[in-house]
């Protein structure tokens, strides 16, 4: 525990890579993520064909030299769909993480700093947290119509309260610090106090939280797609592939298994990366969880 505290203290002077030094599992997680991101960006160059091109002649083909991961019930190439599916999962995961951090930060700073608003804001957040996130997302998507943007919004809303709670707890503890009291006593404007003294303290735990939101968002996207309330069926997302392939599972398990493995591996990598960053950036949290 002591070595983690000291490395957290010296992190400002070192590059982002040193965050993972001495954390082999974290490095593996980061490496897997780099591969997934590279695959998403370079998808057209990786021996893929059109992921949504139907080819009825080649229905339900076993994995082979021609079709590396086989074909699905419409003759679409599973390898191409898995690679392009990374784009969907990453878009959803990263957008949901970024959006929930931005909104959670704003609401959390207000709740933590403006005392009379605190009670109201936190009761609203308690209420939002009580609603099962997947059900809330399902209801939002089923009413607003399926598109990637709707899915991202629907996944982000249930994630915001957790970020708000985190930011608020940091603000509450930091505002009692002598340097903040000193700043208040010399009539520093509130916005400057928030920006210069409080915001920097929220960043390390937020980075950690963002990785967990990203993993959770990718998981929720796959759940929504699996239930038919996610990204539109023509989008090659991993959840959609498994949802469509499940009827053919005994006959052609590769349609379900390969996107399943890709999804699980990606989420695993993000979670492991998050754990590694947490150990370095937020040793207090590392003790608790």
């Amino acid at each position, binding site marked *: 525990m002591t070595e983690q505290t000291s490395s957290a203290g010296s992190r400002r002077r070192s590059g982002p890579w040193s965050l993972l030094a001495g954390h082999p599992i974290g490095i593996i997680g980061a490496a897997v993520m780099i591969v997934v991101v590279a695959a998403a960006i370079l998808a057209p160059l990786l021996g893929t064909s059109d992921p949504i091109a139907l080819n009825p002649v080649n229905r339900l083909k076993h994995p082979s030299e021609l079709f590396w991961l086989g074909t699905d019930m419409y003759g679409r190439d599973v390898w191409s769909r898995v690679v392009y599916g990374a784009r969907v999962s990453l878009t959803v995961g990263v957008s949901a993480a970024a959006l929930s951090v931005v909104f959670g930060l704003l609401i959390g700073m207000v709740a933590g700093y403006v005392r009379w608003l605190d009670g109201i804001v936190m009761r609203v957040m308690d209420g939002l947290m009580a609603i099962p996130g997947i059900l809330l997302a399902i*209801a939002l998507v089923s009413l607003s119509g399926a598109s990637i943007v709707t899915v991202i919004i629907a996944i982000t809303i249930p994630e915001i309260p957790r970020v708000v709670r985190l930011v608020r707890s940091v603000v509450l503890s930091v505002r009692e610090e002598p340097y903040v009291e000193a700043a208040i006593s010399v009539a520093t404007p509130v916005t400057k106090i928030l920006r210069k003294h409080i915001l920097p303290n929220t960043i390390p735990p937020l980075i950690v939280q963002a990785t967990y939101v990203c993993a959770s968002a990718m998981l929720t996207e796959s759940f929504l797609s699996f239930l038919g309330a996610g990204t539109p069926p023509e989008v090659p997302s991993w959840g959609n592939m*498994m949802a469509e392939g499940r009827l053919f599972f005994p006959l052609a398990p590769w349609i379900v298994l390969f996107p399943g493995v890709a999804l699980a591996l990606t989420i695993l990598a993000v979670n492991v990366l998050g754990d590694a960053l947490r150990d370095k950036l937020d040793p207090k949290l590392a003790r608790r969880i």
Partner: protein
Amino acid sequence: MWMFIGRRAVATIPVMLVVAFVVFMILRLSPGDPATVIAGDYASPADIARIRAQLGLDQPVALQFVSWIGRLVQGDLGISIFSNLPVTTLIGQRLEPTLMLSLTTVVFSVLVAVPLGAVAAWKSGTWIDRTVMVVAVLGFSVPVFVLGYFLVYGFSLELKWLPVQGYKSPADGIGLFFRHIALPAGALSAFYIALVARITRASVLEVLEEDYIRTARAKGQVESKVLLVHALRNASVPIVTVIGLGIAALIGGVVITESVFNIPGLGRLVVDAILKRDYPIIQGLILFFSFLYILLNLLIDIVYTVLDPRIRY
């Protein structure tokens, strides 16, 4: 203690109101006319008008909310658009499988996760600890339906030990019940085991550093008693908290698991309602699950005061 329980119970009311308001507004804030969306693409203007009247959408929003809350308080969750049955009746019909699946999962998860976490903390830094932590991260990362399909593939299709899908009530025979519930509860447990094992490990690890543990060891207390009586009991508050908070995620998992294993519970009810856009059912079930979550966590807060007499708010 009764004062505390009373105050804590009153504090759930504003939270429930927020939930009701959010659930109410989802329908009203969604783009387009909700009645048209619910009626679907092939509805006649008469159908749309009927649904609008049935949902009370032709009245002012504030009035709709007040009358809706009024009916909620009386236990009226509305009437299904397609089956014309009260939502409460539908919930009653489908409650048992969901309840049994959730109970089996929670009991099984806690029985597995608490010893795992405690042993990992006790042997912290060893390969046992690392194995438990790796299993825990896996449990967080493998989607429940992926795990479900892998289990079906192994235990049902290949080994033919267990049925592929379906549900049997304990009333049909306890053996039959367990044969059917084993795979869904197993798939659903992975996440919960991971959650509870992690928090158990962390809180036992913290407690093991306390002075009274050293004292207990110094006076020659058997190690198993140190772990069970001194460490685990004092670590129980965060563990029970997480068991309660995990119920929100469990509910999401139940919805998916029931779809994978074709279990006729509340999860199937909600998924079928989505496909048919039967909004009163979706709305009613979200409320039902949210209130259940709030009440369970109220119950857990009350359990705290028994487990740890120091806690008084």
